[in-house]
């Protein structure tokens, strides 16, 4: 029925922890859909996020949705969200995930991922800085 290979889009595949905050038992997964995903990658390569210790049980998983959600890709977001076990929240990284961003009036684009999944944190920017991503993750974890 669908011609889309969603293997690379599954959010639960690889998870990260906030560097230098071992007390923060959050695991961070990224569903990269467009350019904001580069900033998630930058947070990893700059050492702000590090690969999660698989032996630790996270108290919460933050599913970061970075980029533009098209109607065509909505099933991939639902699948990624369903794949997260345990306490979970969604972080909308950037203008596209928040509202559709520069493409909000495109026929192909969802005007904000919150019409598909509940969002706990909206991080403004096009794209936001990696530091803003990590600050938002930390405040979600502190608030939980």
């Amino acid at each position, binding site marked *: 029925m669908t011609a889309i290979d969603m293997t690379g889009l599954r959010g639960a595949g690889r998870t990260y922890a906030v560097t230098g905050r071992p007390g923060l038992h959050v695991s961070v997964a990224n569903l990269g859909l467009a350019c904001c995903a580069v900033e998630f990658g930058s947070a990893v390569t700059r050492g702000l996020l590090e690969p999660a210790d698989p032996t630790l049980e996270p108290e919460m998983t933050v599913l970061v949705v970075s980029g533009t959600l098209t109607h065509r890709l909505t099933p991939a977001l639902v699948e990624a969200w369903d794949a997260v076990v345990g306490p979970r929240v969604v*972080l909308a990284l950037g*203008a596209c995930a*928040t*509202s*559709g*961003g*520069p493409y*909000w009036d495109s026929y192909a684009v969802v005007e*904000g991922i*919150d019409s598909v999944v509940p*969002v*706990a*944190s*909206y*991080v*403004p*920017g*096009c794209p*936001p*800085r990696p*530091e*803003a991503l*990590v*600050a*938002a993750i930390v*405040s979600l974890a502190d608030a939980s």
Partner: protein
Amino acid sequence: MSDAHAFIALDSAACTSCLVCARECPDWCIHIEQHSETLAGDGRPRTVKLLDSFVIDWSSCMFCGICIEVCPYDALSWAPKPVVAESTRAGLAYGISELADPKMDDEG
């Protein structure tokens, strides 16, 4: 280094409600409401526009700065205050008081 994008401040006293910024914004994230008033004077009556509300909706803002560039009255400017993440989308819509430049407040 700042951990969030810079902020666009509005000097509402300098803004003439001309709508140029709202029209030029590629994302249509500036929303302005205004009304006209006619002032009587010595000469012919003059009609002025007065700002009722001015909202920048950061939820779709690209921080491109076009609004700052095109404002004919220098009412918009970059400010170092960060726009932080919010738990609601509505929280990302800043009105006149939230858009006031913190530096201007200090200067009184």
